[in-house]
């Protein structure tokens, strides 16, 4: 295993009195460095490449960078497999700011795949000059002459591509951060671009900007909680490195419990906010609705994955030994999340909001797996994140294609009868919904099994959570089946709603997402084995 980066405490020396240079393992960091480097080049492209070739340059560069990073990561992972054979566990001497271990490699690879699919959907032009989902000029007032002028001049916000890359780099670092400071900074690195991307929708821009503001304010609020929790844990253990915190817990007397327990809970607030667990979920529906649809898909898949990765690392590397003090409260959060997400999705009338509430419910299901506290739980959670993310990106990509008068038709009533007129699109969407519901032969079923099974074995609390989870699943089945009925068995007089023909990029994204949903439902063994073999954290 490779601690990508670390500083060694050298015995007698007081830290801070002498410069102890950090050691970099550039090979292990290379995928992240490639993504960051390409993002910076993208900023330069923005400055120097003329407008007419900018779209092609940005999309090409972004995709090439992501693919290159993914290939590097695969190489790294293969070597890592061989290197692990003769592994000696390193002592507590090396503290890594970035830990590239099994889960980190697995999650980073998945994020890169999500990012490639996400960029493919974001780059959809539908015959226009720039990406169709994004406003031609972010600074122009919605509906103003300036905006129309910008549209006519062929300008576009191609800055979204470097911004996406920065977000991707933050997401890759978030689950591999070995100390809470790096985790906090990567949280911001992934969040700031997303706040901006949320506010750049081409249509319904006021809602988009409000969503952006709401996301920003609540995001900053929750990261302040995360930080205060970090401060308390630093006070508790004298270090922000997760292994140090883990080492301090068994030694710490009860006189410092007043720092440990609030610290853990405040850090948890920050992390649970990012995954959208109840009661920290209020941003999810508004932001998912207001953001440009491809961004919503990417955000729903990748942010959730990165944040759950970070939760896994904090829980399994840092604070597991104090779990009797905090896990009951998190179990309550998991139950609330499943119930609230499932029940509120029943009343939704907007497709994007409905998928948002469904994502809340899914966050609850995944939390059940987190609380299993063993390696099968970790691998189950990672499998769930992969399958949910692939399905989600495809689902939101389809939502972005259903249009009425050029704008997205997101109201459910507009989807009535879609199955008759566009059988392929509606059929794919119905299949993805069945996967969300967890019907057998879809990835959703395998994934639910993968998180519920370790939870069942973990004890009484786990059993209760699984029962609630099954009931919540039943409720969501009702919701999804209702949409399918609406698409296939309801007549509609509304001929204005039609599915626009996407370019090959979006088609690839949808096809890949849907195909993987099927593959992971029918032949899940390969990925299950991979996630199981990658489920050991380096402590």
């Amino acid at each position, binding site marked *: 295993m490779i601690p990508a980066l670390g500083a060694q405490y050298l015995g007698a020396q*007081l*830290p*801070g009195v002498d410069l102890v240079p950090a050691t970099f393992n550039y090979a292990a960091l290379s995928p992240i460095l490639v993504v960051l480097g390409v993002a910076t080049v993208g900023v330069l492209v923005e400055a120097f490449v003329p407008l007419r070739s900018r779209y092609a340059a940005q999309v090409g560069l972004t995709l090439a960078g992501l693919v290159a990073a993914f290939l590097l990561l695969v190489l790294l992972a293969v070597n890592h497999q061989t290197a692990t054979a003769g592994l000696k566990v390193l002592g507590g001497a090396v503290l890594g700011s970035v830990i590239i271990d099994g889960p980190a490699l697995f999650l980073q690879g998945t994020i890169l795949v999500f990012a490639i699919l996400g960029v493919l959907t974001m780059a959809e032009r539908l015959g226009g000059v720039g990406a169709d989902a994004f406003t031609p000029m*972010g*600074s122009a*007032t*919605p*509906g*103003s002459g300036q905006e129309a002028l910008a549209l006519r001049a062929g300008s576009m916000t191609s800055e979204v591509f470097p911004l996406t890359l920065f977000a991707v780099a933050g997401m890759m670092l978030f689950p591999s951060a070995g100390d809470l*400071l790096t985790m*906090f*900074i990567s949280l*911001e690195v992934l969040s*700031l671009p997303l*706040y*901006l991307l949320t*506010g750049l929708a081409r249509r*319904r*821009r*006021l*809602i988009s*900007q*409000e*969503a*952006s*503001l*709401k996301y*920003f*304010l609540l995001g*900053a*609020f929750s990261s*302040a*909680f995360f*930080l*205060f929790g*970090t*401060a*308390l844990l*630093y*006070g508790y253990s*004298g*270090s*922000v490195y997760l292994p140090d915190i883990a080492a301090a817990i068994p030694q710490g007397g009860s006189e410092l419990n007043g720092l440990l327990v609030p610290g853990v809970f405040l850090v948890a607030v920050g992390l649970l906010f990012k995954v959208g667990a109840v009661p920290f979920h209020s941003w999810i529906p*508004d932001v998912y*609705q*207001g953001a440009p649809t491809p961004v919503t898909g990417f955000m729903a898949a990748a942010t959730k994955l990165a944040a759950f990765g970070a939760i896994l690392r904090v829980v399994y590397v840092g604070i597991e030994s104090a779990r009797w003090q905090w896990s009951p409260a998190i179990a309550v959060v998991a139950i609330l999340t499943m119930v609230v997400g499932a029940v509120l999705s029943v009343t939704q009338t907007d497709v994007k909001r409905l998928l948002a509430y469904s994502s809340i419910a899914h966050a609850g299901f995944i939390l059940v797996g987190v609380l299993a506290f063993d390696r099968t739980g970790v691998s189950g959670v990672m499998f769930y994140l992969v399958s949910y993310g692939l399905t989600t990106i495809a689902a939101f990509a389809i939502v972005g294609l259903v249009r009425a008068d050029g704008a997205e038709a997101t109201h459910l009533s507009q989807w009535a009868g879609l199955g008759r007129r566009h059988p392929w699109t509606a059929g794919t969407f119905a299949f993805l919904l069945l996967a969300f519901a967890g019907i057998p032969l879809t990835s959703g079923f395998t994934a639910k099994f993968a998180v519920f099974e370790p939870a069942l074995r973990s004890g009484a609390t786990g059993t209760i959570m699984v029962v609630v989870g099954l009931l919540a699943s039943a409720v969501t089945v009702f919701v999804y089946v209702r949409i399918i009925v609406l698409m296939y068995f309801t007549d509609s007089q509304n001929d204005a709603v039609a599915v626009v023909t996407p370019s090959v990029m979006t088609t690839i994204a949808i096809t890949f997402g849907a195909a993987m949903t099927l593959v992971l439902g029918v032949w899940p063994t390969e990925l299950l084995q991979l996630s199981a073999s990658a489920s050991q954290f380096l402590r």
Partner: protein
Amino acid sequence: MSLSHYIYLATILFSIGAVTVLLRRNAIIVFMGVELMLNATNLAFVTFARVHGTLDGQVIALFVMVVAAAEVVVGLAIIMAIFRARRSASVDSANLMKL
């Protein structure tokens, strides 16, 4: 006076910041509440650094300032964009979400 008084002060400031975020409707004031929370956190870091006799806490506080500065830029840009949109006669002002 023991050093825990500093921690109490940090807690009070943090809570006041949180209350500001929860109560105020003006986006700029809400944002200032968040900044107050970050500042309170920094006070806690600096104090714990003194307790533990290492400079780590001070360095972390320095990074928090950098992060906060970047956050301020993005946040104020978003707030300005919204202000510009609202002050001009806007098209789809119906059906806005509640903030």
